[in-house]
């Protein structure tokens, strides 16, 4: 994307936001101020924006990998939940001896959980021909119920009173830089994953094959590249990234699992990936945009009567505005191409 296009898009999105606020009768100036303040007002606000962007970076990356491989994974939410559950299982296991060195192991478990759940959808497609879109919708529902079961059953806190897991012991929680701030090192893990995924997609054989199969399965077939296996891999990597997001949210901001653990970050990976143009590097600004939007609109909801539902409207319009603007651009492009 050219810088000029990015600028145009940004202006367009702000206009869309202003319009939405106006339509719902919110004072545009003060509302924008509240949103801006909530997203960037002070170091706390910036930290919140970053923390919200963290799972979005990871689920966005997850969607990029799957979609690049031609797999329409919309099961990020389920993979996120299962990842967190795997992490919580390990935490429960090492609870008697919560040594900080277990931290990486817990995150690996989250990756494995998410990857396994992604693979399940991949297998359903490759081996049984079940559309990924349909199977992942169903698997998302199943994951939510599994979570509910887990926190009232095997993963429930020690006293077995409330439907939650135990609070993650401090030693295992993701390190923070300032006790008063939300920022934790998970954000940097996510940023590192951007680099890793970027290297994976563009500098490894496996990543190359994922891109190739996603672009044209026939070429892969004619050159002895096992497309099914490659697509399974893309689902596993995708699920693993979403699982990692779940693990980080569990060890970081949430600190425990409960009914309300899933916050739609898995679903939101989809628009992030789209906004990023299916480019891992683009995921960072896209996730920051949404992170800031969420931190800002949370602030709006906190300090006005706009209410939590208003946030959904703002988010939805932000996505639709983006899709609308990008299809407009596409149309101009194809019109130009058709002219010759």
């Amino acid at each position, binding site marked *: 994307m050219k810088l000029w296009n990015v600028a145009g898009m940004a202006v367009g999105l702000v206009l869309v936001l202003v319009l939405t606020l106006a339509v719902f009768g919110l004072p545009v100036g003060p509302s924008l101020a509240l949103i801006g303040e909530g997203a960037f007002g002070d170091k706390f606000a910036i930290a919140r924006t970053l923390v919200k962007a963290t799972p979005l970076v990871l689920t966005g990356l997850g969607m990029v990998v799957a979609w690049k491989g031609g797999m329409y994974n919309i099961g990020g939410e389920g993979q996120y939940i299962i990842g967190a559950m795997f992490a919580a299982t390990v935490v429960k296991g090492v609870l008697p001896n919560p040594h900080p060195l277990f931290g990486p192991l817990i995150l690996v478990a989250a990756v494995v959980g998410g990857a396994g759940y992604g693979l399940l959808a991949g297998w359903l497609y490759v081996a049984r021909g079940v559309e990924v879109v349909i*199977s992942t919708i*169903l698997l998302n529902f199943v994951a939510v119920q*599994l979570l509910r079961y887990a926190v009232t059953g095997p993963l429930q806190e020690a006293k077995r009173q409330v439907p939650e897991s135990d609070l993650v012991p401090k030693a295992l929680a993701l390190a923070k830089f300032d006790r008063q701030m939300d920022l934790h090192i998970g954000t940097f893990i996510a940023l590192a994953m951007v680099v890793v995924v970027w290297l994976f997609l563009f500098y490894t054989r496996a990543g190359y094959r994922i891109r190739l199969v996603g672009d044209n399965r026939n070429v892969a077939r004619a050159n002895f590249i096992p497309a099914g296996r490659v697509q399974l891999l893309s689902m596993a990597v995708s699920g693993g990234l979403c699982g990692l997001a779940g693990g980080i949210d569990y060890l970081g901001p949430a600190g425990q699992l409960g009914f309300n653990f899933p916050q739609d970050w898995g679903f939101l990976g989809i628009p992030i990936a789209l906004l990023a143009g299916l480019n891992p590097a683009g995921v960072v600004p896209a996730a920051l945009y949404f992170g800031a939007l969420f931190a800002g609109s949370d602030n709006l909801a906190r300090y006005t009567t706009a209410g*939590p539902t208003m946030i959904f409207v703002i*988010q939805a319009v932000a996505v639709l505005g983006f*899709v609308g603007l990008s299809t407009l651009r596409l149309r101009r492009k194809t019109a130009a191409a058709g002219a010759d």
Partner: protein
Amino acid sequence: MDPIELLRYAAPVAIAALGETVVQRAGLIHISLEGTMLTGAFFAMWVVALTGSVGLGLGAALLIGAAMAIVFGWFTIWRAADQVVVGTALNLLAIGLTGTLFRSQFGQSGKLLSVGKLPTFWGGLDLVLVLLLVGVPVIGFLLAKSSWGLALRSAGEYPKATEAAGYSVLRLRTGAMLVGGMLGGLAGAYLTVGITGSFADNCTAGRGFVAIAMVTFGRWRPWGVLLAALFIGAADSLQFRFQASGVQVPYPLIMAMPYVLTLLVLVVVGKGKRFAGGAPAALGQAFRRGE
């Protein structure tokens, strides 16, 4: 359970899934069906609360359902935008829109609403249920035998053949979306003015997604889809029965049952196109002319 009661509780999913059958047969997946149902549910309730007329409420639901479908269709059919992305966004929009309006109209701290309901006759049937029972064979017949159904199905199977035969894939799909949207709105309305006479945030509770899955479960046939919806409804009733008779199974696992069952059916049916029909070949694929 009394069969009419079973039908009544299965109806929201069944009606939405019936519409979704038409939509998927034309090659689209209406991911925002959940949101369409929710707006239908809210607007039906709102209009009934304002006017006292259930008929007007149902009409409002049809209109808003159609409007949501048009938005979805404009992006996905005419702009060839991704169905999942647009659908996800519209679901968010629906939650936000209904929630915001609900608060602004009925108070910040909420209120248990009770509005007029659809009158029943013949031991519990009502207009919408009759419509559903008539709609299944009618839509089944139209899809299978009529000119419209034939053209529509070809758009879901092989859009190029549709265009070669002289129909516009884009228009056919838009028409299918209208049917799917109106039925989605009606399905939502039936929750609020048919079953409960009330509305709450998110009262569709995932039924739209279930309806999408039921279309696959019912193998893209109206009768199959109705049976699938009844099956899930019955499984749900059974689940409550279990609880009320003290059977000790963790209820989240019971609640996952419908989805797991659907997945199992899909695994068994798998790629077998021959087994009671398969997915429309062009399902979920945007059609761009001249490609």
